[in-house]
């Protein structure tokens, strides 16, 4: 198992890995954009709908960026994987909330929170990867924007309106986190990548006696035991 994407081919992330990662991201962000599009009224009447519109636009930007920045190649496994992923993203009313519409909105926010919080595509890039590579820049952009996009979901899910159903909300978010994390990790494991090893890397502070290059060149191997 490796901690990062690679080994590199001609100095770039292999096209199959780019295809698989971007397909996952486009499946999930596309589903979220679709759900936001359905939930968004043609004319906005509340402040939170403005935020929802902004989220919708950012998700569309992510889809456009991934579509153009990825080196796509045919991947026979994608048909089954995309079917599996799309099935997982279907909105579901959550238990413990009587108002069905509110339950659907909570699930939508929970899915968005999980997608933006759990998925860290930039953390897959090898540490010395070139900064000017379009795929790398797209991964960094998606991860960076996710940290901001998540704030709307946090405000809603932690907000005063949902205090009476806080336990149900927490369960719904935990469930979506587990689901998104499992699918993401399964996709990565199929490419021999295990991100759990990132915590076992030598902290830079402890490398004072060693040249930076030696530390940076530490093998990108997950150290976690099977």
């Amino acid at each position: 198992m490796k901690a990062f994407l690679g080994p590199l081919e001609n100095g770039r992330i292999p096209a199959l890995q780019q295809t698989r990662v971007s397909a996952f991201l486009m499946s999930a962000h596309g589903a979220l954009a679709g759900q936001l599009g359905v939930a968004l009224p043609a004319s906005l009447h509340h402040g939170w709908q403005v935020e929802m519109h902004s989220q919708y636009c950012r998700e569309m930007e992510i889809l456009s960026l991934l579509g153009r920045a990825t080196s796509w190649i045919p991947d026979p496994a994608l048909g089954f994987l995309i079917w599996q992923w799309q099935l997982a993203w279907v909105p579901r009313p959550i238990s413990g909330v009587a108002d069905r519409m509110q339950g659907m909105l909570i699930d939508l926010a929970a899915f968005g929170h999980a997608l933006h919080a759990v998925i860290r595509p930039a953390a897959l890039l090898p540490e010395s990867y070139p900064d000017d590579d379009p795929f790398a820049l797209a991964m960094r952009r998606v991860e960076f924007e996710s940290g901001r996009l998540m704030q709307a979901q946090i405000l809603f899910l932690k907000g005063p309106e949902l205090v009476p159903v806080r336990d149900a909300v927490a369960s719904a978010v935990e469930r979506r986190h587990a689901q998104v994390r499992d699918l993401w990790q399964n996709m990565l494991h199929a490419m021999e990548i295990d991100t759990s090893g990132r915590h076992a890397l030598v902290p830079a502070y402890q490398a004072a006696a060693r040249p930076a290059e030696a530390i940076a060149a530490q093998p990108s191997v997950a150290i976690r035991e099977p």
Partner: protein
Amino acid sequence: MPWLECNSRRIHYELAGPPHGPACVLVNGLTQYVRLWHPFRDALVAKGFQVASFDMLGQGQSDKPSLFIHQDDQVAVLGRLIERLGDRPIFVAGISFGGVIALRYAIDHGDKIAGLVPMSSFAEIPAQLLMLGNALRTGLILGGTTFLQDLLFPMNFSGEWLHSMRHLIELARHRGWLANDVYALQNLMESFLEFEPLTERLSAIRVPTMILTGEYDFLTPRPLQESLRIHIPDSALVIIQRAYHAFTLENPGLTAYLLTRFAEDVMAGRWHGKQSIWVAPENVGGELVRFPEGFDHMRAIPVRIQADEIAPRQTAAAS
């Protein structure tokens, strides 16, 4: 790799050193994870301590609750780890955020530990710390983990250290970014939104307590450590020269030396805190020096304590 179960959550921890004799539990700061303690840990192990360190909920390899992290749960995790160490002298040392968790544990379960070492810690959140905390949280939200680290570097370390490590700062930033998830850090920071000051409860801490503070720490400055000193009966305040907030990282050898001296003094019955104030040596093996009598340890320049200030301070300490 050892794991603890606590309230259905999985906690990653490490043990190093001999399984008998005194033990020391290290509690992380906000963006820390167990790997960062290794030099500090190794210095303690060399002195015969068994050292336990763990990732708190939301950190490193431990579970990261998606929306809410309660400090009570962090205290429960610390308690579970201390239980696992069994019946022997156990010292708890926590830095910054981890110091708060250690203080909370010592307030409620002081009988289970032999000594406490809050480092760069605090029991209340006055306006200055509140505004700094809010700014750090906003920095995290708008700029991500990397920007938070950029804000923390000059608070945590001296200019000399940052200069000497400049070739490694980019790597440190990257490794810190890899190890921390934005949502988990945000949850940890937001666990302070409902924070109730501990000040009035500090007198319940009856164990020997060594309060460590950096001479130049402006994130958790001297008044916060002073509050610990005057409310914890068997305490001593030790000022680490030229240090900023994260002296366990900048000078792990010296900090571990102070901790082992403290533990040895406590176990030998030599410790008498008496709310005294000390200046730490600059190097391992040096002697602690009493803060000069009659001068004000709260000031940055050598100002004599005014006669009318002595009585109120003594009253506060006595109460």
